[in-house]
Protein backbone atom coordinates (compact mmCIF):
# COMPACT_ATOMS: atom_id res chain seq x y z
CA UNK A 1 0.00 0.00 0.00
CA UNK A 2 1.37 3.37 -0.97
CA UNK A 3 2.19 6.16 1.48
CA UNK A 4 -0.70 8.14 0.09
CA UNK A 5 -3.20 5.47 1.03
CA UNK A 6 -1.56 4.96 4.41
CA UNK A 7 -1.96 8.68 5.02
CA UNK A 8 -5.58 8.61 3.88
CA UNK A 9 -6.29 5.71 6.20
CA UNK A 10 -4.68 7.51 9.13
CA UNK A 11 -6.79 10.57 8.31
CA UNK A 12 -9.97 8.52 8.22
CA UNK A 13 -9.00 6.98 11.55
CA UNK A 14 -8.57 10.44 13.09
CA UNK A 15 -11.95 11.52 11.68
CA UNK A 16 -13.72 8.82 13.68
CA UNK A 17 -14.60 10.87 16.75
CA UNK A 18 -17.07 10.04 19.50
CA UNK A 19 -19.93 11.39 17.39
CA UNK A 20 -19.07 9.27 14.35
CA UNK A 21 -18.55 6.23 16.53
CA UNK A 22 -21.91 6.61 18.23
CA UNK A 23 -23.59 7.27 14.89
CA UNK A 24 -22.31 4.02 13.39
CA UNK A 25 -23.22 2.02 16.46
CA UNK A 26 -26.71 3.55 16.49
CA UNK A 27 -27.60 2.85 12.87
CA UNK A 28 -30.57 0.49 12.77
CA UNK A 29 -30.24 -0.20 9.03
CA UNK A 30 -33.78 0.98 8.37
CA UNK A 31 -33.03 2.49 4.97
CA UNK A 32 -35.11 5.62 5.54
CA UNK A 33 -32.17 7.76 4.39
CA UNK A 34 -32.44 6.15 0.94
CA UNK A 35 -35.92 7.63 0.48
CA UNK A 36 -34.64 11.07 1.45
CA UNK A 37 -31.86 11.11 -1.15
CA UNK A 38 -32.64 12.41 -4.64
CA UNK A 39 -29.85 10.25 -6.09
CA UNK A 40 -31.55 7.13 -4.79
CA UNK A 41 -35.13 8.25 -5.37
CA UNK A 42 -34.56 9.27 -8.97
CA UNK A 43 -32.41 6.31 -10.03
CA UNK A 44 -33.67 3.51 -7.77
CA UNK A 45 -30.03 2.42 -7.43
CA UNK A 46 -29.50 1.02 -3.90
CA UNK A 47 -25.81 2.03 -3.97
CA UNK A 48 -27.01 5.61 -3.58
CA UNK A 49 -28.38 4.89 -0.10
CA UNK A 50 -26.69 7.67 1.92
CA UNK A 51 -25.32 5.50 4.76
CA UNK A 52 -23.83 3.10 2.17
CA UNK A 53 -21.74 5.97 0.81
CA UNK A 54 -19.96 5.86 4.17
CA UNK A 55 -18.95 2.21 3.86
CA UNK A 56 -15.17 2.89 3.81
CA UNK A 57 -15.41 4.80 7.08
CA UNK A 58 -17.74 2.19 8.56
CA UNK A 59 -15.35 -0.58 7.56
CA UNK A 60 -12.49 1.09 9.44
CA UNK A 61 -14.73 1.85 12.41
CA UNK A 62 -15.95 -1.73 12.60
CA UNK A 63 -12.49 -3.26 12.48
CA UNK A 64 -11.06 -0.93 15.13
CA UNK A 65 -13.95 0.09 17.37
CA UNK A 66 -16.15 -2.99 17.73
CA UNK A 67 -15.53 -6.23 19.53
CA UNK A 68 -16.68 -8.39 16.64
CA UNK A 69 -14.61 -6.34 14.23
CA UNK A 70 -11.47 -6.63 16.32
CA UNK A 71 -12.09 -10.33 16.77
CA UNK A 72 -12.46 -10.97 13.03
CA UNK A 73 -9.32 -8.95 12.46
CA UNK A 74 -7.47 -11.17 14.95
CA UNK A 75 -8.72 -14.27 13.18
CA UNK A 76 -7.70 -12.76 9.85
CA UNK A 77 -11.29 -12.86 8.64
CA UNK A 78 -11.62 -9.20 7.71
CA UNK A 79 -9.70 -7.27 5.08
CA UNK A 80 -8.13 -3.91 5.69
CA UNK A 81 -9.38 -0.75 4.09
CA UNK A 82 -7.53 -0.81 0.78
CA UNK A 83 -6.72 1.49 -2.10
CA UNK A 84 -9.40 -0.37 -4.04
CA UNK A 85 -12.02 0.76 -1.50
CA UNK A 86 -11.11 4.39 -2.18
CA UNK A 87 -11.23 3.76 -5.93
CA UNK A 88 -14.58 1.97 -5.71
CA UNK A 89 -16.23 4.60 -3.50
CA UNK A 90 -14.97 7.77 -5.19
CA UNK A 91 -18.04 8.12 -7.38
CA UNK A 92 -20.43 7.52 -4.47
CA UNK A 93 -18.60 10.02 -2.26
CA UNK A 94 -18.32 12.84 -4.81
CA UNK A 95 -20.67 12.36 -7.79
CA UNK A 96 -23.74 11.20 -5.91
CA UNK A 97 -23.66 13.39 -2.80
CA UNK A 98 -24.42 17.11 -2.63
CA UNK A 99 -23.74 17.26 1.13
CA UNK A 100 -27.30 18.58 1.15
CA UNK A 101 -28.10 16.90 4.46
CA UNK A 102 -31.65 15.81 3.62
CA UNK A 103 -30.76 12.29 4.78
CA UNK A 104 -29.68 13.67 8.16
CA UNK A 105 -33.17 15.13 8.64
CA UNK A 106 -35.04 11.84 8.33
CA UNK A 107 -32.78 9.51 10.30
CA UNK A 108 -34.94 8.17 13.17
CA UNK A 109 -31.91 7.84 15.46
CA UNK A 110 -30.51 11.25 14.57
CA UNK A 111 -27.40 10.32 12.59
CA UNK A 112 -25.95 13.32 10.78
CA UNK A 113 -24.91 11.45 7.65
CA UNK A 114 -23.86 14.61 5.78
CA UNK A 115 -21.52 15.49 8.66
CA UNK A 116 -19.86 12.09 8.34
CA UNK A 117 -19.60 12.29 4.57
CA UNK A 118 -17.92 15.65 4.85
CA UNK A 119 -15.40 14.06 7.22
CA UNK A 120 -14.89 11.04 4.99
CA UNK A 121 -14.02 13.35 2.10
CA UNK A 122 -10.95 14.53 4.03
CA UNK A 123 -9.49 11.03 3.68
CA UNK A 124 -10.53 10.73 0.04
CA UNK A 125 -8.80 14.01 -0.72
CA UNK A 126 -5.55 12.64 0.73
CA UNK A 127 -5.97 9.36 -1.15
CA UNK A 128 -6.03 11.23 -4.45
CA UNK A 129 -9.35 9.67 -5.44
CA UNK A 130 -11.15 12.94 -6.17
CA UNK A 131 -12.85 14.37 -9.28
CA UNK A 132 -10.53 16.40 -11.48
CA UNK A 133 -12.92 19.37 -11.70
CA UNK A 134 -13.02 19.77 -7.92
CA UNK A 135 -9.26 19.34 -7.58
CA UNK A 136 -8.70 22.04 -10.18
CA UNK A 137 -11.27 24.34 -8.54
CA UNK A 138 -9.39 24.11 -5.24
CA UNK A 139 -6.02 24.61 -6.92
CA UNK A 140 -7.27 27.67 -8.79
CA UNK A 141 -8.74 29.14 -5.61
CA UNK A 142 -5.45 28.70 -3.80
CA UNK A 143 -3.39 30.20 -6.63
CA UNK A 144 -5.70 32.84 -8.20
CA UNK A 145 -8.17 33.40 -5.36
CA UNK A 146 -11.20 31.98 -7.19
CA UNK A 147 -12.46 28.64 -8.58
CA UNK A 148 -13.27 30.43 -11.85
CA UNK A 149 -10.05 32.44 -12.06
CA UNK A 150 -11.72 35.72 -11.05
CA UNK A 151 -9.08 38.29 -10.09
CA UNK A 152 -9.23 41.84 -8.75
CA UNK A 153 -9.19 43.02 -12.37
CA UNK A 154 -12.36 41.00 -13.09
CA UNK A 155 -14.07 42.45 -10.02
CA UNK A 156 -13.03 45.97 -10.97
CA UNK A 157 -14.41 45.52 -14.51
CA UNK A 158 -17.73 44.31 -13.06
CA UNK A 159 -17.88 47.11 -10.50
CA UNK A 160 -17.19 49.71 -13.19
CA UNK A 161 -20.33 48.56 -15.04
CA UNK A 162 -22.36 48.47 -11.83
CA UNK A 163 -21.25 51.99 -10.87
CA UNK A 164 -21.96 53.36 -14.33
CA UNK A 165 -25.46 51.87 -14.44
CA UNK A 166 -26.41 52.79 -10.87
CA UNK A 167 -24.62 56.09 -10.37
CA UNK A 168 -23.42 54.75 -7.02
CA UNK A 169 -19.85 54.43 -5.77
CA UNK A 170 -18.94 50.97 -4.53
CA UNK A 171 -16.70 51.37 -1.47
CA UNK A 172 -13.41 49.44 -1.63
CA UNK A 173 -11.06 49.00 1.35
CA UNK A 174 -12.95 51.48 3.51
CA UNK A 175 -11.33 51.26 6.93
CA UNK A 176 -13.80 51.07 9.80
CA UNK A 177 -16.89 50.32 7.73
CA UNK A 178 -19.58 48.45 9.62
CA UNK A 179 -19.97 45.61 7.11
CA UNK A 180 -17.63 43.85 4.66
CA UNK A 181 -19.26 42.01 1.76
CA UNK A 182 -18.00 38.83 0.11
CA UNK A 183 -19.17 37.63 -3.30
CA UNK A 184 -19.01 34.31 -5.09
CA UNK A 185 -17.13 34.19 -8.39
CA UNK A 186 -20.34 33.45 -10.24
CA UNK A 187 -21.92 36.59 -8.79
CA UNK A 188 -18.98 38.70 -9.96
CA UNK A 189 -18.96 37.17 -13.43
CA UNK A 190 -22.57 36.32 -14.19
CA UNK A 191 -24.82 38.05 -11.67
CA UNK A 192 -23.53 41.62 -11.33
CA UNK A 193 -27.21 42.41 -10.77
CA UNK A 194 -26.77 40.91 -7.31
CA UNK A 195 -23.91 43.30 -6.52
CA UNK A 196 -25.88 46.22 -7.94
CA UNK A 197 -28.89 45.27 -5.81
CA UNK A 198 -26.83 45.06 -2.64
CA UNK A 199 -25.32 48.48 -3.41
CA UNK A 200 -28.75 50.06 -3.97
CA UNK A 201 -30.30 48.52 -0.88
CA UNK A 202 -27.36 49.55 1.33
CA UNK A 203 -27.39 53.05 -0.09
CA UNK A 204 -31.10 53.39 0.67
CA UNK A 205 -30.79 51.89 4.16
CA UNK A 206 -27.67 53.90 5.00
CA UNK A 207 -25.56 50.80 5.64
CA UNK A 208 -21.86 51.54 6.02
CA UNK A 209 -20.12 48.84 4.01
CA UNK A 210 -17.06 47.94 1.97
CA UNK A 211 -15.46 45.32 -0.22
CA UNK A 212 -11.86 44.27 0.47
CA UNK A 213 -9.54 44.25 -2.53
CA UNK A 214 -7.54 41.57 -0.71
CA UNK A 215 -10.35 39.07 -0.09
CA UNK A 216 -13.70 39.22 -1.85
CA UNK A 217 -14.18 35.57 -2.78
CA UNK A 218 -16.81 33.71 -0.78
CA UNK A 219 -16.70 30.21 -2.27
CA UNK A 220 -14.57 27.58 -0.59
CA UNK A 221 -13.56 24.59 -2.71
CA UNK A 222 -11.69 23.23 0.32
CA UNK A 223 -14.82 22.34 2.24
CA UNK A 224 -16.34 20.80 -0.89
CA UNK A 225 -13.49 18.42 -1.73
CA UNK A 226 -12.61 17.79 1.92
CA UNK A 227 -9.32 19.64 2.36
CA UNK A 228 -9.26 21.33 5.72
CA UNK A 229 -5.87 22.86 4.91
CA UNK A 230 -7.27 24.41 1.73
CA UNK A 231 -10.49 25.41 3.47
CA UNK A 232 -8.56 27.03 6.30
CA UNK A 233 -6.40 29.04 3.92
CA UNK A 234 -9.47 30.32 2.03
CA UNK A 235 -11.37 31.21 5.23
CA UNK A 236 -8.25 32.91 6.66
CA UNK A 237 -8.05 35.29 3.72
CA UNK A 238 -11.54 36.66 4.39
CA UNK A 239 -11.04 36.71 8.16
CA UNK A 240 -7.72 38.57 7.92
CA UNK A 241 -9.15 41.11 5.48
CA UNK A 242 -12.21 41.75 7.67
CA UNK A 243 -10.11 42.18 10.80
CA UNK A 244 -7.65 44.43 8.99
CA UNK A 245 -10.50 46.71 7.92
CA UNK A 246 -11.93 46.55 11.43
CA UNK A 247 -15.49 45.76 10.34
CA UNK A 248 -18.14 44.57 12.79
CA UNK A 249 -19.85 42.20 10.39
CA UNK A 250 -18.90 40.04 7.42
CA UNK A 251 -21.68 39.45 4.91
CA UNK A 252 -21.92 35.99 3.36
CA UNK A 253 -23.52 36.39 -0.08
CA UNK A 254 -26.39 34.44 -1.62
CA UNK A 255 -23.97 31.54 -2.40
CA UNK A 256 -24.92 28.47 -0.35
CA UNK A 257 -21.76 26.69 0.78
CA UNK A 258 -19.96 30.01 1.36
CA UNK A 259 -22.18 30.38 4.42
CA UNK A 260 -21.30 26.89 5.67
CA UNK A 261 -17.62 27.72 5.20
CA UNK A 262 -17.44 31.15 6.78
CA UNK A 263 -20.27 30.93 9.31
CA UNK A 264 -20.14 27.37 10.59
CA UNK A 265 -16.83 25.69 9.72
CA UNK A 266 -14.61 28.77 9.71
CA UNK A 267 -13.83 29.33 13.41
CA UNK A 268 -13.04 25.62 13.87
CA UNK A 269 -10.84 25.66 10.77
CA UNK A 270 -8.74 28.58 12.00
CA UNK A 271 -8.95 27.51 15.63
CA UNK A 272 -10.27 30.71 17.16
CA UNK A 273 -13.21 33.12 17.36
CA UNK A 274 -13.54 35.89 14.79
CA UNK A 275 -13.30 39.52 15.89
CA UNK A 276 -16.50 40.23 13.91
CA UNK A 277 -19.83 38.51 13.31
CA UNK A 278 -20.92 36.70 10.18
CA UNK A 279 -24.37 37.44 8.78
CA UNK A 280 -26.03 36.05 5.68
CA UNK A 281 -27.30 38.65 3.21
CA UNK A 282 -30.87 37.37 3.61
CA UNK A 283 -30.68 37.71 7.39
CA UNK A 284 -29.38 41.25 6.96
CA UNK A 285 -32.11 42.24 4.48
CA UNK A 286 -34.76 40.77 6.79
CA UNK A 287 -33.27 42.74 9.70
CA UNK A 288 -33.18 45.99 7.69
CA UNK A 289 -36.81 45.45 6.78
CA UNK A 290 -37.86 44.80 10.38
CA UNK A 291 -36.00 47.90 11.52
CA UNK A 292 -37.87 49.93 8.92
CA UNK A 293 -34.65 50.89 7.17
CA UNK A 294 -35.94 49.51 3.88
CA UNK A 295 -39.54 49.71 2.69
CA UNK A 296 -41.21 48.49 -0.44
CA UNK A 297 -43.17 50.07 -3.19
CA UNK A 298 -45.67 47.59 -4.64
CA UNK A 299 -45.29 43.87 -5.19
CA UNK A 300 -44.79 41.48 -8.06
CA UNK A 301 -48.03 39.68 -8.94
CA UNK A 302 -46.18 36.99 -10.90
CA UNK A 303 -46.92 33.59 -9.35
CA UNK A 304 -43.61 32.29 -8.02
CA UNK A 305 -42.10 29.71 -5.74
CA UNK A 306 -38.89 29.48 -3.71
CA UNK A 307 -36.02 27.03 -4.12
CA UNK A 308 -34.32 26.82 -0.70
CA UNK A 309 -30.53 26.48 -1.05
CA UNK A 310 -29.55 23.55 1.20
CA UNK A 311 -26.56 25.16 2.87
CA UNK A 312 -28.39 28.39 3.70
CA UNK A 313 -31.72 26.92 4.75
CA UNK A 314 -31.43 23.28 5.87
CA UNK A 315 -27.82 23.32 7.06
CA UNK A 316 -27.60 27.03 7.79
CA UNK A 317 -30.91 27.64 9.56
CA UNK A 318 -31.90 30.74 7.55
CA UNK A 319 -35.45 29.53 6.97
CA UNK A 320 -37.74 32.44 7.84
CA UNK A 321 -35.78 35.36 6.38
CA UNK A 322 -36.32 34.48 2.69
CA UNK A 323 -40.03 33.97 3.34
CA UNK A 324 -40.44 37.21 5.28
CA UNK A 325 -38.83 39.04 2.37
CA UNK A 326 -40.78 37.22 -0.33
CA UNK A 327 -44.13 37.98 1.29
CA UNK A 328 -43.25 41.69 1.13
CA UNK A 329 -42.38 41.74 -2.57
CA UNK A 330 -44.47 38.97 -4.17
CA UNK A 331 -48.24 38.57 -3.85
CA UNK A 332 -48.23 35.28 -5.75
CA UNK A 333 -45.69 33.42 -3.63
CA UNK A 334 -46.51 29.74 -3.15
CA UNK A 335 -44.49 27.05 -1.40
CA UNK A 336 -43.45 23.84 -3.14
CA UNK A 337 -44.10 20.50 -1.50
CA UNK A 338 -41.16 19.61 0.76
CA UNK A 339 -40.11 23.22 1.14
CA UNK A 340 -37.87 24.84 3.75
CA UNK A 341 -35.63 22.48 5.67
CA UNK A 342 -36.96 19.52 3.67
CA UNK A 343 -36.42 21.00 0.22
CA UNK A 344 -34.73 18.90 -2.46
CA UNK A 345 -31.26 20.00 -3.58
CA UNK A 346 -30.76 21.39 -7.09
CA UNK A 347 -28.24 18.59 -7.58
CA UNK A 348 -25.20 20.83 -7.98
CA UNK A 349 -24.17 21.32 -4.36
CA UNK A 350 -21.19 19.79 -2.59
CA UNK A 351 -18.95 20.37 -5.59
CA UNK A 352 -21.01 18.22 -7.96
CA UNK A 353 -21.54 21.10 -10.40
CA UNK A 354 -17.75 21.39 -10.79
CA UNK A 355 -17.44 17.67 -11.54
CA UNK A 356 -17.90 17.17 -15.29
CA UNK A 357 -18.00 13.41 -14.93
CA UNK A 358 -21.17 13.72 -12.81
CA UNK A 359 -23.14 15.81 -15.31
CA UNK A 360 -25.38 13.06 -16.72
CA UNK A 361 -26.27 11.83 -13.22
CA UNK A 362 -26.91 15.37 -12.01
CA UNK A 363 -29.32 16.01 -14.89
CA UNK A 364 -31.08 12.71 -14.25
CA UNK A 365 -31.71 13.43 -10.58
CA UNK A 366 -32.93 16.92 -11.50
CA UNK A 367 -36.10 14.98 -12.31
CA UNK A 368 -36.97 15.50 -8.65
CA UNK A 369 -36.83 19.32 -8.99
CA UNK A 370 -38.81 19.07 -12.21
CA UNK A 371 -41.65 17.26 -10.42
CA UNK A 372 -41.54 19.70 -7.53
CA UNK A 373 -41.76 22.73 -9.82
CA UNK A 374 -44.50 21.16 -11.94
CA UNK A 375 -46.56 20.42 -8.83
CA UNK A 376 -46.18 24.00 -7.65
CA UNK A 377 -48.02 25.13 -10.79
CA UNK A 378 -45.91 28.25 -11.31
CA UNK A 379 -43.20 29.02 -13.81
CA UNK A 380 -41.01 31.43 -11.87
CA UNK A 381 -38.55 30.19 -9.25
CA UNK A 382 -36.79 32.50 -6.81
CA UNK A 383 -33.61 31.36 -5.14
CA UNK A 384 -30.66 32.78 -3.22
CA UNK A 385 -27.54 30.97 -4.42
CA UNK A 386 -25.65 31.70 -7.65
CA UNK A 387 -24.67 28.06 -8.06
CA UNK A 388 -28.25 26.84 -7.53
CA UNK A 389 -29.31 29.37 -10.16
CA UNK A 390 -26.91 28.05 -12.81
CA UNK A 391 -27.70 24.41 -11.99
CA UNK A 392 -31.47 25.08 -12.03
CA UNK A 393 -31.18 26.87 -15.38
CA UNK A 394 -29.26 23.95 -16.86
CA UNK A 395 -31.73 21.41 -15.54
CA UNK A 396 -34.75 23.38 -16.73
CA UNK A 397 -33.19 23.74 -20.16
CA UNK A 398 -32.37 20.03 -20.27
CA UNK A 399 -36.01 19.15 -19.57
CA UNK A 400 -37.21 21.91 -21.92
CA UNK A 401 -39.16 23.65 -19.19
CA UNK A 402 -40.14 27.25 -19.68
CA UNK A 403 -39.38 28.30 -16.11
CA UNK A 404 -37.58 31.47 -15.17
CA UNK A 405 -35.08 31.59 -12.30
CA UNK A 406 -34.57 34.86 -10.41
CA UNK A 407 -32.50 35.97 -7.44
CA UNK A 408 -34.18 37.02 -4.21
CA UNK A 409 -31.91 39.97 -3.42
CA UNK A 410 -32.55 41.36 -6.90
CA UNK A 411 -36.30 40.97 -6.44
CA UNK A 412 -36.09 42.82 -3.12
CA UNK A 413 -34.10 45.64 -4.77
CA UNK A 414 -36.63 45.88 -7.60
CA UNK A 415 -39.45 46.83 -5.22
CA UNK A 416 -37.33 48.95 -2.91
CA UNK A 417 -38.89 52.28 -1.97
CA UNK A 418 -36.27 54.90 -2.72
CA UNK A 419 -35.55 57.52 -0.14
CA UNK A 420 -36.88 55.61 2.87
CA UNK A 421 -34.88 56.38 5.95
Amino acid at each position, binding site marked *: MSDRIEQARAELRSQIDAKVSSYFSSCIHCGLCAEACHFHVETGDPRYTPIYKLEPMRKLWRSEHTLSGRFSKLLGRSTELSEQDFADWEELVYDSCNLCGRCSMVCPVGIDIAYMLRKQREAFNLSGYTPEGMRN*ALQRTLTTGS*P*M*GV*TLKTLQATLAHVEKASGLTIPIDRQGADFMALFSSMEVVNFPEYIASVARIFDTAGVSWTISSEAFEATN*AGIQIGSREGAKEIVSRAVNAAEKLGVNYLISPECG*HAYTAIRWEGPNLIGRRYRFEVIHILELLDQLMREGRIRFNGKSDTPMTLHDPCQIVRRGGVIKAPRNLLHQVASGFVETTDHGSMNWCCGGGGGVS*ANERAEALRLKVFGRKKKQFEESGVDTVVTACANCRIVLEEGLEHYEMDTEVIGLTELVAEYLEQGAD
Partner: protein
Amino acid sequence: MAIEIEGKSLETDEEGYLVNLKDWVPAVADAMAKEDDLELTEEHWEIINFLREYYEEYQIAPAVRVLTKAVGKRMGKDKGNSKYLYALFPYGPGKQACRFAGLPKPTGCI
Protein backbone atom coordinates in the same frame (compact mmCIF):
# COMPACT_ATOMS: atom_id res chain seq x y z
CA MET B 1 1.38 19.46 -28.00
CA ALA B 2 1.62 22.16 -30.60
CA ILE B 3 -0.23 23.62 -33.55
CA GLU B 4 1.46 24.81 -36.77
CA ILE B 5 0.36 28.31 -37.76
CA GLU B 6 1.89 30.38 -40.55
CA GLY B 7 5.15 28.48 -40.28
CA LYS B 8 5.33 28.80 -36.50
CA SER B 9 4.78 26.11 -33.92
CA LEU B 10 2.46 27.32 -31.13
CA GLU B 11 2.30 25.43 -27.87
CA THR B 12 -1.07 24.03 -26.77
CA ASP B 13 -2.11 22.15 -23.63
CA GLU B 14 -3.36 18.56 -23.59
CA GLU B 15 -6.89 19.66 -24.39
CA GLY B 16 -5.79 21.84 -27.30
CA TYR B 17 -5.99 25.29 -25.68
CA LEU B 18 -3.21 27.75 -26.51
CA VAL B 19 -0.67 27.94 -23.70
CA ASN B 20 0.37 31.52 -24.47
CA LEU B 21 -2.58 33.80 -25.08
CA LYS B 22 -0.39 36.24 -26.96
CA ASP B 23 0.34 33.64 -29.65
CA TRP B 24 -3.16 34.00 -31.03
CA VAL B 25 -3.76 35.13 -34.60
CA PRO B 26 -7.01 34.61 -36.55
CA ALA B 27 -5.40 31.69 -38.41
CA VAL B 28 -5.36 29.79 -35.08
CA ALA B 29 -9.16 29.74 -35.05
CA ASP B 30 -9.28 28.62 -38.69
CA ALA B 31 -6.81 25.80 -38.10
CA MET B 32 -8.56 24.59 -34.92
CA ALA B 33 -11.94 24.72 -36.66
CA LYS B 34 -10.59 22.67 -39.54
CA GLU B 35 -9.46 19.99 -37.10
CA ASP B 36 -13.02 19.93 -35.69
CA ASP B 37 -14.49 19.72 -39.26
CA LEU B 38 -15.99 23.17 -39.00
CA GLU B 39 -15.79 26.03 -41.42
CA LEU B 40 -15.87 29.41 -39.71
CA THR B 41 -18.58 31.78 -40.92
CA GLU B 42 -19.24 35.39 -40.08
CA GLU B 43 -21.52 34.20 -37.24
CA HIS B 44 -18.67 32.18 -35.71
CA TRP B 45 -16.33 35.15 -35.99
CA GLU B 46 -18.84 37.41 -34.27
CA ILE B 47 -18.67 35.15 -31.21
CA ILE B 48 -14.89 34.61 -31.39
CA ASN B 49 -14.26 38.36 -31.59
CA PHE B 50 -16.71 38.94 -28.77
CA LEU B 51 -14.76 36.44 -26.64
CA ARG B 52 -11.47 38.21 -27.38
CA GLU B 53 -13.00 41.50 -26.22
CA TYR B 54 -14.62 39.87 -23.20
CA TYR B 55 -11.32 38.40 -22.10
CA GLU B 56 -9.53 41.68 -22.60
CA GLU B 57 -11.98 43.33 -20.21
CA TYR B 58 -12.62 40.63 -17.60
CA GLN B 59 -9.48 38.43 -17.83
CA ILE B 60 -11.62 35.34 -17.58
CA ALA B 61 -12.87 32.73 -20.05
CA PRO B 62 -16.68 32.57 -19.77
CA ALA B 63 -18.31 29.17 -19.19
CA VAL B 64 -21.32 28.35 -21.32
CA ARG B 65 -24.06 30.02 -19.27
CA VAL B 66 -21.94 33.08 -18.68
CA LEU B 67 -21.20 33.32 -22.40
CA THR B 68 -24.86 32.85 -23.31
CA LYS B 69 -25.95 35.62 -20.98
CA ALA B 70 -23.15 37.98 -22.09
CA VAL B 71 -23.92 37.38 -25.78
CA GLY B 72 -27.60 38.01 -25.04
CA LYS B 73 -26.78 41.34 -23.42
CA ARG B 74 -24.66 42.45 -26.36
CA MET B 75 -26.43 40.91 -29.38
CA GLY B 76 -29.94 40.20 -28.15
CA LYS B 77 -31.88 37.06 -27.27
CA ASP B 78 -31.79 35.71 -30.85
CA LYS B 79 -28.11 34.98 -30.39
CA GLY B 80 -27.90 34.78 -26.61
CA ASN B 81 -29.44 31.33 -26.35
CA SER B 82 -28.04 27.81 -26.14
CA LYS B 83 -29.62 26.58 -29.37
CA TYR B 84 -28.01 29.25 -31.51
CA LEU B 85 -24.60 28.92 -29.84
CA TYR B 86 -24.55 25.11 -29.83
CA ALA B 87 -25.46 25.11 -33.54
CA LEU B 88 -22.35 27.21 -34.18
CA PHE B 89 -20.07 25.39 -31.73
CA PRO B 90 -21.29 21.80 -31.41
CA TYR B 91 -18.59 20.79 -28.89
CA GLY B 92 -19.93 23.38 -26.46
CA PRO B 93 -19.93 27.12 -27.04
CA GLY B 94 -17.96 27.78 -23.86
CA LYS B 95 -15.18 25.27 -24.42
CA GLN B 96 -14.92 25.14 -28.21
CA ALA B 97 -15.34 28.85 -28.89
CA CYS B 98 -12.89 29.81 -26.12
CA ARG B 99 -10.35 27.39 -27.61
CA PHE B 100 -10.78 28.93 -31.07
CA ALA B 101 -10.42 32.41 -29.56
CA GLY B 102 -7.15 31.47 -27.87
CA LEU B 103 -8.59 31.72 -24.35
CA PRO B 104 -8.00 29.25 -21.51
CA LYS B 105 -10.56 26.52 -20.84
CA PRO B 106 -13.55 28.11 -19.10
CA THR B 107 -14.60 26.81 -15.70
CA GLY B 108 -17.81 27.08 -13.74
CA CYS B 109 -18.36 27.91 -10.11
CA ILE B 110 -18.39 25.40 -7.28
